[in-house]
């Protein structure tokens, strides 16, 4: 009884299967689909129709969430091409990135220990710049270059940035709530 999953996320929204994507077109297609399948449209329908509606709305939300975020979109696209980004299993990183990683970590630790939101915000800014750079590389690797191995490596790096940023946000939140 699951909604048919023969269409991939891109096809579900009538979009080309590609990393480059127009966010406005994605949003338009998502809202158009949701306005047809959302359970609110079927609140007074029979139980079977309500269940199908919930499955489809769930599917639409999942597809939209995946495609909207560049990292999730890259990972998903690589999966369609048969590449596993290996974020849990493959922890090897180039030496220069490892160095950079350690510097950021130390800066975050110092900011957290010194209860220094400004320092944490500064690292956050650096991460944002690094992310923009890597996303541009990712777009090239998954676009014209079709270099999926490089794409996997970039996804792993971006994943690291995401996690570090989450830690910074948690530390900032803890600081604003006055807990250690």
């Amino acid at each position, binding site marked *: 009884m699951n909604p048919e999953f023969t269409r991939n996320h891109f096809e579900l929204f009538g979009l080309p299967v590609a990393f480059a994507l127009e966010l406005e077109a994605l949003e338009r297609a998502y809202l*158009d689909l949701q*306005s047809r399948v*959302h359970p609110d449209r079927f*609140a*007074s329908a029979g139980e079977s129709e309500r269940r199908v509606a919930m499955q489809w709305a769930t599917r639409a939300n999942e597809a939209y969430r995946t495609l909207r975020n560049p990292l999730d979109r890259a990972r998903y696209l690589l999966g369609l091409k048969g590449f596993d980004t290996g974020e849990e299993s493959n922890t090897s990183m180039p030496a220069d990135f490892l160095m950079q990683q350690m510097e950021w970590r130390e800066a975050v630790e110092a900011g957290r220990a010194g209860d220094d939101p400004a320092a944490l915000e500064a690292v956050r800014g650096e991460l944002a710049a690094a992310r923009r750079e890597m996303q541009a590389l990712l777009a090239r690797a998954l676009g014209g270059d079709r270099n999926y191995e490089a794409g996997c490596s970039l996804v792993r790096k971006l994943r690291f940035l995401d996690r570090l940023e989450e830690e910074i946000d948690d530390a900032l939140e803890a600081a604003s709530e006055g807990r250690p």
Partner: protein
Amino acid sequence: MSLLQISEPGESPEPHQRRLAVGIDLGTTHSLVATVRSSSAEALPDGEGRVLLPSVVRYLPDGAVHVGDDAKARAGDDPANTIVSVKRFMGRGVADVAKFGALPYRFVDAPGMVGIETAAGLRSPVQVSAEILRTLRERAEQTLGGELFGAVVTVPAYFDDSQRQATKDAAKLAGLNVLRLLNEPTAAAIAYGLDNASQGTFAIFDLGGGTFDLSILKLTRGVFEVLSTSGDSALGGDDFDQAIAVHWRVHHGLADASGKDTRRLLVAARQVKEALSTQEEAGADVTLSWGQQMHLKLRRAEFEHITAALVQKTLGPTRKALRDAGLKPADVDGVVLVGGATRMPHLQRAVESYFGREPLKDLDPDQVVAIGAAIQANALAGNRSADDDWLLLDVTPLSLGLETMGGLVERVIPRNSTIPVARAQEFTTFKDGQSAMAIHVVQGERELVSDCRSLARFELRGIPPMVAGAARIAVTFQVDADGLLSVSAQEKTTGVLASVVVKPSYGLTDDEVARMLREGFDHAQADRDARLLAEQQVEAAAMLSALRAALAADGDLLSPAERESLEARAASLERAAQGTDPRAVKSAVEAVNRASESFAARRMDRTIARALAGRHIGEVPTS
């Protein structure tokens, strides 16, 4: 038995099918019911013209129950049996309610949720809330002249799963068909947005009697998309009353005042707090239980000083919601104030200074939530007209996860995920030959299980013997459009289906709800059967009319044999609905449901295919 419904002209595409639907704001301090009539939403007054029903329930020794103003008037004399602000106890345990300060109730540590010992016996907060909802249901049915098809009941956006489940149980207990649980700030946004045809990003700042919500919404033409929500489900106007009462106790040597005095002090504190919104100084007369009369006073500056920390407490969730939405205060196009507690001037100043703009307060902060709920109820009941086309996308307020080794939380669904949402996570066994796995579902943002709210525990049994790490247990979380969670687990390697669906542990089981319904003193046996039959007949009629429309539109999706079988079941449903046995109608409804499952799926596939075909013309950029 049930009255014919007559709709107003031009309101519905099929006037004869117009259904009575209401929105109910079940508030901490007061509750109200609203509906859409003559294409505008309005709150419904009681026989004496009062719209707001105080959320106060008094239990008398003879079994009588008073709800509203009558109960409120006696709260000072009979505090232990007069339940005020019961919403704060919904889905909460004894340890949670202890945090609310001195309260004049006899709490009982019942499993999952506190109970309150009253003159009429032990009552659960769910039952107390059901009394309020029942009063409003009766008010609506009397005013509208018929049985309700259904209701949208609002909850604070920051309510967790246990509080939502408790609210839904209370509505069922009150005999309401819950069309949807709707988040209060989202309801306010609907009322506000549709009223003003607003576009842009809005912050809804909703400080009620007992709860605080801050939701960020993006309003584009016809779509209300919640970007993030945050809040504190134990912060509200009541805390400001408590602060005043504590201040008086300290300054007038009333530390030992009894339960009656506690309630009297709180009543006086509320009067003074409300007066201070327009006056520089206010006072109230209090007669204490030992006969002493006092005039208790407070200046606005003092009030603002002793409650400054409470005002500050609203800004933490506000910051969090903005950060989750990826926005700064200046990105917000408008701030809407909701809830009676937002009338306090120092709170308004704090909000204005944080966002750098004057908040909008042109809609009655006490009524806006019920109005929004009524508008959604009208749409969900199928009464919307062709030009009334809008869509609501809400989120889950708190992360949902599982306990893993070491008491740590593995997040499965992050907060602010658009609902409905489903996510599966795979786990494996720890020991060779392990045949069962304990699954502990928690809700909250902290890393340790002990800092999060425990929602449910269950065991997956019957895992076939395997070496450690070989089993693949998929745990699936599904949050539906009401924001309610269900969890299932399944071992996948061997194809053995061992799966279980849980209802959170504090929630009432369907049997318990049924038992409470049976015990309802205003439901004589005959009444109950008649009501049950009427409900089933309404359901049958709705289903048959939906099926006929579906067959007319998409009948070609069925083979002649499939169509014949479906029509045969529809015919037996029609026959059953003319009888008097509610169980026969129910099972015929279920039969039609089962028979139409694959038809429903195929129809939805066709809808999607058509949508895609439509989009391919010119809209999709080619690359």
